[in-house]
């Protein structure tokens, strides 16, 4: 009979409970990621970069070599690591603000250069760490601290389609997918393929994970799931967008 928590092996036990809020999707994304890393057996070779955003709270989340970087700059830091030591397996972890706003030049250019790194982006439709401002991914009509009357698409545009954008500037070698913490098994599968794509030297891999932020959404558990599963998926289509391994007729999940 098990009386120890069933955490992924690469989670750092001493830093648990982790620093994320109750019900935070970051915990789920990193659980799926931890399992993916365990299953691929790459804990020792992995280098994990954490962006500023709530992702920074993961600076000591894993028993994995980790560097917490600046807001939006995790992609270049991790690119720098990989270029200098191609034996590492490099993961850049960031939020929608870090990835699609302040760090978008790094994201699109790393993608275009086909850097052999894996970028994982937790999309929670807002700037969570700073207290819930509008993000590029905020849904139309959604109220945030800087869209107090709801996001007006005429003023602020529609939610950024990150994976679609990344797909548009990458070529064959890239792996691009969007998962959700609502389907952790699938998400873990995407992570494994993304990491495998890096390990195979194919190229850039990118997974956006639809994630939850009950604190800034001001939702209870029920509404948290509902927002994730009903609202967000109206704008963000879950699935694989680009998969080099699926070339021969094999199709994504």
């Amino acid at each position, binding site marked *: *009979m*098990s*009386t*120890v*928590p*069933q*955490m992924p092996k690469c*989670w*750092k*036990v*001493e830093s*648990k*409970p*982790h620093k*994320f*809020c*109750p*019900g*935070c*999707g*970051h*915990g*789920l994304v990193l*659980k799926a990621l931890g399992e993916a890393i365990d299953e691929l057996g790459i804990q020792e070779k992995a280098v994990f970069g954490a962006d500023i955003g709530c992702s920074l709270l993961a600076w000591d989340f894993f028993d994995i070599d980790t560097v917490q970087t600046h807001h939006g700059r995790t992609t270049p830091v991790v690119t720098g690591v990989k270029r200098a030591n191609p034996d590492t397996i490099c993961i850049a972890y960031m939020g929608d603000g870090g990835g699609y706003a302040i760090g978008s030049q790094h994201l699109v250019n790393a993608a275009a250069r086909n850097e052999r790194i894996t970028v994982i982006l937790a999309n929670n439709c807002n700037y969570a760490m700073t207290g819930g401002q509008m993000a590029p991914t905020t849904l139309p009509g959604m109220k945030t601290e800087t869209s107090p009357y709801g996001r007006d698409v005429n003023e602020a545009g529609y939610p950024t389609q990150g994976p679609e954008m990344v797909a548009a500037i990458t070529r064959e070698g890239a792996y691009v997918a969007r998962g959700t913490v609502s389907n*952790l098994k699938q998400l873990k599968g995407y992570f494994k393929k993304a990491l495998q794509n890096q390990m195979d030297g194919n190229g850039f891999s990118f997974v956006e994970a639809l994630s*939850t932020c*009950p604190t800034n959404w001001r939702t*209870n*558990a*029920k509404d*948290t*799931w509902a927002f994730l599963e009903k609202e967000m998926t109206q704008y963000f289509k879950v699935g694989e967008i680009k998969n080099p391994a699926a070339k021969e007729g094999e199709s994504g999940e």
Partner: protein
Amino acid sequence: MSVAYKALPFEGEKGSWTVFMSLCKGCGLCMEKCPKGCLSWSSHLGAYGTPTIEPNMDDCTACGICKAVCPDCAIAVVKKK
């Protein structure tokens, strides 16, 4: 590295179920996803001084969904063979 967590185990027909109180933040995500609706708030306090959860082991099928969706790995479920 071993860290001790205060565990609250429950036994049922289909398996055993444990919540680690110092990991549970009382977010309630598990509760919403339990297909049997057999989780409820417990009077024990968790990581943030917030209530943890407890199962109704009569209904629990030890399916492990609650465990899977917990962002804090605060639940362990072992199915009986």
